[in-house]
C-alpha cells in the first residue's frame, strides 16, 4: 500500500524547492530574486521538518527567513544603483553552462541512485552512549559532547567573518546611519516592537533550555535572539557605532572562552580534553550553551548591523 498523501507532499515540496531555486537564480529583477530566496529558505525549513530534522528546521526558520533576508535586503538597498537594473544574463556561453548544469545534476543523481547502503550506523553509537552525555536530545549530545571539538572550533570560526567585516569597514568606514530614519515613526512599529521583542527573548531562552531534551539549543536560541536584535536595530532602539564596546567584545568571545575553559578544566582530574564527567555533564553543557547563545546572537546581530559596535538608540 503506497501512502499517496505523503508522496504528494514530498513531491510538491521537491518541485517547490527546485522552482524557487530556479526563480532565485534567473529572476531579472534582483529584488524579486531575494524575495524568492527568502521563500526558498522557508521551504527548506519545511523540508528539514519533513525529513525529521526539527533542530535544523528551527535554525533555518530563524536564519533563512530572518537573518539572511535582512542581510540581503540591506545589501540590495546599499547597491540600489542603475547597475542592478542591468540585464541579468551575462554569459557568452549559456548553452555550454546549461549543459554543465545538466551534466553535474545528472552525474550527482546517478551517484545518489547507485549509493551503497550505509556501513556505519552512527545513530546506534549515539543512542548507546546518550545516557552518559548529560542531555537527552541526541543532536545536542553530538554538538556539545560527542563532537564537542567541532563545535568548539566552530565557535572560533564564527568570529572570523565578523573580524573580516571590521577590517573592511576600517579601511573605508561605512556610513553609520545606514538604517533609514523615518520609517520608525508609525505607532504600529512601536506596538510591534513592544509585543515581539519580549516574546522573542522568551522564545530564545526557552529554546536554549529545551535543547537538553528536545529540539532547540544554542544555535537556534542565538538566531532567534539575533532576529529580535535586528528588529531593535531597524526600529532605532539600537544604533551602530564605529568602535566596539568592551562589554560587547566580552559578549562576543564569551562562548569561546567558557567553552575552552571548561574543555581544558576537565583535564584537571586526568580525563582527556572535552570529556566531561558524566555526573556533571548536563550542567556543563547548559553553561556552555548559555555562553554560546550570547556570543552567537551578538555575532549575528553585529553582522546584520554591519558596524563594529552598538549603543542604545533614542526611541524607547
Amino acid at each position: 500500500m503506497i501512502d499517496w498523501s505523503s508522496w504528494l507532499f514530498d513531491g510538491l515540496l521537491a518541485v517547490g524547492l527546485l522552482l524557487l531555486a530556479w526563480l532565485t537564480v534567473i529572476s531579472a529583477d534582483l529584488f524579486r530574486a531575494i524575495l524568492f530566496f527568502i521563500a526558498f529558505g522557508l521551504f527548506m525549513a519545511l523540508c528539514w521538518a519533513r525529513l525529521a530534522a526539527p533542530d535544523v528546521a528551527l535554525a533555518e526558520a530563524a536564519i533563512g527567513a530572518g537573518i539572511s533576508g535582512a542581510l540581503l535586503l540591506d545589501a540590495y538597498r546599499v547597491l540600489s544603483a542603475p547597475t542592478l537594473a542591468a540585464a541579468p544574463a551575462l554569459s557568452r556561453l549559456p548553452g555550454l553552462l546549461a549543459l554543465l548544469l545538466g551534466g553535474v545534476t545528472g552525474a550527482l543523481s546517478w551517484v545518489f541512485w547507485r549509493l551503497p547502503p550505509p556501513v556505519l550506523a552512527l545513530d546506534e553509537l549515539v543512542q548507546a552512549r546518550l545516557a552518559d552525555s548529560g542531555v537527552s536530545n541526541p543532536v545536542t549530545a553530538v554538538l556539545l559532547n560527542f563532537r564537542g571539538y567541532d563545535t568548539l572550533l566552530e565557535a572560533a570560526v564564527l568570529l572570523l567573518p565578523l573580524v573580516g567585516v571590521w577590517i573592511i569597514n576600517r579601511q573605508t568606514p561605512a556610513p553609520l546611519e545606514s538604517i533609514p530614519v523615518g520609517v520608525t515613526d508609525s505607532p504600529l512599529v512601536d506596538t510591534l516592537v513592544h509585543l515581539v521583542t519580549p516574546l522573542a527573548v522568551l522564545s530564545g531562552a526557552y529554546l536554549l533550555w529545551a535543547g537538553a531534551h528536545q529540539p532547540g539549543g544554542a544555535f537556534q536560541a542565538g538566531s532567534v535572539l539575533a532576529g529580535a536584535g535586528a528588529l531593535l536595530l531597524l526600529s532605532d532602539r539600537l544604533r551602530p557605532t564605529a568602535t566596539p564596546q568592551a562589554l560587547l567584545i566580552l559578549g562576543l568571545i564569551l562562548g569561546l572562552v567558557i567553552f575552552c575553559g571548561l574543555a581544558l578544566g576537565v583535564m584537571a582530574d586526568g580525563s582527556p580534553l572535552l570529556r566531561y564527567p558524566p555526573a556533571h555533564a548536563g550542567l556543563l553543557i547548559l553553561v556552555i550553551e548559555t555562553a554560546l547563545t550570547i556570543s552567537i546572537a551578538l555575532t549575528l546581530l553585529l553582522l546584520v548591523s554591519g558596524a563594529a559596535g552598538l549603543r542604545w538608540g533614542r526611541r524607547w
Partner: protein
Amino acid sequence: MNPTLLFLLTAAGLFGIGLYGLLAYRHPLRQVLAANVMANGVFLVFIALARRGLANPDPVPHAMVLTGIVIAVSTTAFALAIIKQLHRTSGSPDPASAPPPSAAVDS
C-alpha cells in the same frame, strides 16, 4: 524510488541550479544567492542520508548541518560586506568594472 532518493535527486538539482547561477551571472549579489542555493543542496544531501534506512534519524549529520547553516549565514554576511565595500569605493559592485588601485589614485 523512495522518499530519500526523491530528496537526494532534489539536492542534485539544487546544486546544479546554484552552480549555473554562480557561473552564468556576473553580479556578485546574484553569485552569493546562487552559492547559497548550492549550499542548501549540500545540506539536503546530509539530512536525506541521515534518515536512510534507520529507525531514528542519525543526529551526527543534523549537528553538522546545524552548524553549517550558522557558518553559511556568517560567510554570506562577510561576502555582502565585501560587495558593499566594493560598491562604495568604485561605484559598481562588479569587480571587473572597478578601476585598478593605481588608476584610482591618479584620478
